[in-house]
């Protein structure tokens, strides 16, 4: 019972922390900034477009990121499982 309450508290704290962080993130125009960064990125890579197929390059990078995120999500899930399994 003690362990259960302790784990419940950990989950609650994590949820509270994420929620608070998410609220802070949403309160600042971070996604506008990221969008502008992407605009600059498009501008920077545009000269390469004369010689290189940028759409497929960006697609490939996108899939690389997805696989990367999926792998570390998997690791995080295992880690959380191990914490709660103890």
């Amino acid at each position, binding site marked *: 019972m003690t362990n259960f309450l302790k784990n419940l508290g950990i989950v609650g704290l994590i949820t509270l922390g994420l929620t608070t962080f998410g609220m802070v993130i949403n309160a600042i125009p971070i996604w506008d900034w990221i969008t502008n960064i992407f*605009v600059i990125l498009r501008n920077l890579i545009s000269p390469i477009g004369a010689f290189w197929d940028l759409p497929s390059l960006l697609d490939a990078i996108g899939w690389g990121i997805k696989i990367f995120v999926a792998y570390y999500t998997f690791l995080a899930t295992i880690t959380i499982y191990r914490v709660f399994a103890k």
Partner: protein
Amino acid sequence: MTTIKIIKICSSIGSLVGLFLLFFLLSGQQVKAEETTAIVVVQPHFNDNYSYNGQLYTGTSLINSFTSATTTTVYLTRMEAVFSDGAGSDVAGTYTVTGSICADSVCSTVLATSNSTDFANYGTGFANWGAVTLDKSVELLPNVTYYYRYTLNTASYNNYIYLRGGAGYITAFGYFYSLTPPTPATMDYINYNYSQGQANITGAYPNLDPLNWSIHYNVCDTGYPPSGGNITFSLEDVDGYDLTVNGGQKLFSTGFIGAMPCQGDIVYTGKADIGGYGTSMVFLVMTTTDNENTVIQKIYSDGFTAHQSPHIIYSNGNIHYGGKNPLNINVGVATSTPISFDYNICNQENWASSTLWLYNSTTNKNTIYSFTPTVCSGIGVIDMTNEISLGFNYNAVYQIRLEDLVLETQIISNGFVINMSSQDIKEQELNRASLMSIFGKSPHDLACTNTEWSTSDNAFGINMVKMGCNIKEAFWSTADTGIRAVYTIFEVATLGLRYVFPFNLPIKISDAWDKSAITEMPSDVAFLNQADSNGDFNLDMPSSLFGASSTRVLIGKGMLPTANDPNSKLSKILLGFKGLSKYVNWGALALGIWLTGQAVLSDLNGKKEEEYI
């Protein structure tokens, strides 16, 4: 990822690049100029010189073109008449010709009359002829005989006018032809409507009014081209001459039309300059050709004059969806749903490698459906197949968007809503998370048949059959409710989390990327955008070093002087190399996945990566 591994990946990518460099000279893309064969508008042609004074001419049928199944509009555009005097002497002077289409042989009912046309100082003998152009049309029914009469009037000249071979003078001459429209050979048609742009022509060129021209077509009968064929929309004048606009362009044409429905509605929103044709009759012409560019069929719209029509002014860069809105889709039916639109992306330098996507403007994402243009302006069709429409985001606003990753102008169509049909919505609602969807029946029907439910057999005053049915119905209802509840929890846990930090991060990042394609940089950081409109980085050469200041392209397509010429060898080489680079990109991803997999295995097994690589 260790430094050694990064070096390995980079060297592998470099090797692949080198390998493909050997082959890029063998590759090249050639843009084939599109040509269509022009044929002349069918025109009734009169050239008889013996019948006169009310005699009925019953020669060959003079009308052989139809634009609809039951009725047709015929334009008598040109007529040749041969005159001479009966005494063998030529007479010069002035006479007037007026044409009429009559419902009977004595012309008691005039259906249409031309403007009077004056002819003066005609020449001698057979050379005496004049052309009459009727500027009115009449709707003729097939298999009904009509009559055509033209009238000569010499009121302005007191000499006699004779038909060649005839005798006597005339001041009003009845001259009849029978017009028997044949049974239409095709049910195909093309019509148009326009909603704006009826301003009169001013000056040599029309006003530059925007065009919103709704075109309805049906070529299902005989004019539907085979795969690889083409459909071209153009304008022709009354003499059948092709009205090219803006320096020789057709209005618009399709490339591959394999998925294009044989009938439908399109809206042409481009503009075209038809200045100089303000007072002449103009026809919208739909030409279908096969894959060898042979004309299969030309069909004509009703005629219009430029001052009646929207002034068609050509402009670059537009996509327009003119179909039904909302567009209802029958989900699950083994058919496809083509979405037709017209587009013009000729101002896009790399239009040949661009893609037009069906874009969900509600979620700010492209769908899986797209159209690859083969000509820079024309009709595009995105075919939504119902098999993969499962999970499609219905009840959302969609647009057609030109996928353009770098710098060039973003072109996006007007929005339209895609809905499921009402029947599909009901079925989806019923099937969603329902156990009953497995059996396709309600708990009531699943428990017992109608016969069992309606049985009246009683045993000791109790209907055992019906009681059993009630028990089974309660069981199925409970099971169904339980499954619905489980599904709802699962739905909240999965779909709901998409909007909760940090699970929303991938979605937000993806959205920001899409949004960046159509976002202008804030002015205070605009200096970071160094590429010019061609995507080149330029370098200003100082005059202190090079004598005269000049701007040179540092990197980009502009650094190659001949690259802007699409027919140059260098441009073809660049296009070929660019095509091959696609395989390099995906090859590098595959290599990266393989190397990452090695690292994952080593992590999981606790071994050093050198044992795997």
